[in-house]
């Protein structure tokens, strides 16, 4: 899939926004300003952005507990996201959801999910809606390596195939589920499993934006043209702990530093597009600066935001109250 200049800039901006967002949430969490459980997506940006560059308003995604990156890639408002994570009334969910339940159905983002394996069945439903109403839309479930072992995920594979749904499963294999290595927890292989369900699948370097972009392009095309579900297995890495506060003692010595240095998907994107003469380094620097300002602004606004009013406790339970 060929991206034009605008698209390349947009992709870079998205990845950079995710990184800056997560780096800043990390800092703010350490400073004590952010409550609850927070799982950061830094390092995995190429996956969310590479996939979502292929999607439009018709399309839906379901995310995981590690949902900020998918949110941003699907177009959610960054200020509202930050406010949500700070538990503010201005938040994307009015402060009721927080990091683990960040969602914007208007953008086709069906939610981060506190339940590992919660998303794949939902995405079968979104795909069914698209198929039934002939919207042309597709639906994507992001799944962790750990989440690939949940029965709900595997049921969704079978169902998507039996119903021939325009569904795509993106297994983001960052090598760990909490502190447990995927090379231990995942018997067999992701591709082997997909094959076991008769689902076309590819493995890609999950830190190579262009590889994911292409894999997702094929899967989306297959889905839109009635060809049924696909699976993409991306190997990638997370830069922070499982959740904020995780000391990551289970990781190898210097593992994260080495990864940041050698595998960073944003750096690799940058290198590739500048070396190929597609974009100028200065253009990208400008984006970095703009994004930094945007995130700074988002944090300032979030902190200045209001706590939800007490009455909000009792609303949004049912449509009637």
């Amino acid at each position: 899939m060929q991206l034009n200049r605008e698209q390349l800039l947009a992709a870079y901006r998205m990845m950079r926004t995710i990184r800056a967002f997560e780096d800043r949430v990390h800092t703010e969490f350490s400073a004590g300003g952010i409550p609850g459980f927070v799982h950061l997506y830094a390092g995995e940006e190429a996956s969310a952005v590479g996939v979502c560059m292929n999607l439009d308003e018709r399309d839906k995604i379901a995310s995981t507990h590690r949902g900020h990156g998918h949110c941003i890639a699907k177009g959610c408002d960054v200020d509202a996201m930050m406010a949500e994570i700070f538990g503010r009334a201005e938040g994307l969910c009015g402060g009721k959801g927080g990091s683990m339940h960040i969602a914007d159905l208007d953008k086709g983002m069906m939610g981060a999910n506190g339940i590992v394996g919660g998303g794949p069945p939902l995405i079968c439903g979104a795909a069914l809606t698209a198929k039934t109403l002939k919207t042309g839309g597709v639906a994507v479930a992001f799944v962790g390596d750990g989440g690939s072992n949940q029965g709900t995920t595997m049921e969704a594979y079978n169902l998507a195939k039996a119903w021939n749904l325009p569904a795509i499963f993106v297994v983001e294999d960052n090598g760990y589920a909490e502190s447990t290595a995927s090379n231990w927890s995942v018997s067999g292989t992701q591709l082997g499993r997909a094959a076991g369900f008769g689902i076309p699948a590819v493995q890609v370097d999950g830190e190579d934006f262009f590889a994911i972009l292409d894999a997702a392009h094929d899967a989306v095309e297959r889905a839109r043209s009635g060809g049924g579900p696909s699976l993409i297995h991306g190997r990638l890495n997370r830069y922070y702990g499982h959740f904020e506060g995780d000391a990551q003692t289970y990781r190898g010595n210097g593992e994260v530093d080495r990864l940041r240095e050698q595998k960073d998907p944003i750096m690799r994107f940058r290198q590739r597009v500048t070396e190929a003469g597609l974009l100028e380094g200065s253009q990208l620097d400008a984006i970095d600066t703009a994004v930094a300002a945007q995130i700074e602004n988002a944090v300032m606004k979030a902190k200045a935001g209001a706590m939800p009013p007490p009455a909000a406790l009792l609303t949004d339970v049912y449509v009637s109250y």
Partner: protein
Amino acid sequence: MAKKSFRQAINEALAQEMRRDPRVILMGEDVAGGQGAPGEDDAWGGPLGVTKGLMPEFGRERILDTPITESGFIGAAIGAAATGLRPVAELMFVDFMGVCFDQIFNQAAKFRYMFGGKAVTPVVIRTMFGAGFRAASQHSQCLYPIFTHIPGLKVAIPSSAYEAKGLLIQAIRDDDPVIFFEHKMLYDDTDDVPDEPYTIPFGEANLTREGGDVTIVALGRMVKVANEAADALARQRVACTVIDPRTTSPMDFDTILESVEETGRLVVVDEAHPRCNMAADISARVAQDAFKALKAPIRMVTPPHVPVPFSPALEDAYIPSAARVIEAVRAVTA
């Protein structure tokens, strides 16, 4: 008005709503049946024939058979509901909730709240419940207290064919997730059921008997048992009001409280396991909000705290009977 069975009433409600609204779809294991098989298509219409005949009219695009994969397809129904369809999913027996409850209670029930009011999830989950079929421990439970416990869910429990049609149409038109409980021993019960579509609002109890001596609250099949008891008691000059809440979430506590204000006596009949059940839920609320009116202890008539046994001899002893309701009423009116 035509006599129709509880089964027919449900079938008719589904057919009429599907005709009215193309977004209504149906899914579940063998809800049509015969998928991929060499013989008859629409071979089953559900294990007890409740959805039979819908597939020929609406086609496989709208009547979807599923693999045995309750998390998968109940989740799919919920995901479809959140994106524009109005699915009616069949969880064959409510006893199977244990393999798919997450999608119901953590996803469907909480979307709206977690997402700050932006989600609408108009899904209906039809499910069979209750004892009497000699179906043993894993196919005879009630479990509606569990669903009633969860904020964000609505729970409807029709006690007759008339209620079944009206409540189901309401459930389908409702914008919140609704768990629709069908007692398997009621399917062949007949009742006057209007041909045209009609709705019964949620949260409005129905008084099936009126009398000033004691208030009996009962649900589902137990409404029949309570009515039977009330009829017998009437012959003995004990006048009972029998209240069928029809939905447990929302729950029409007001009607119950008002009735107890008049009668001063309450008996609750609940087929569910006795701990943390609807009998407790209703009794506690009355003990809190109508205490002054109470002239006697509240009595709960429930099965014992045991799984549902298989042997008919035991199962018959397990299920609350009219005799036990009469005994409870006698105790509180003594």
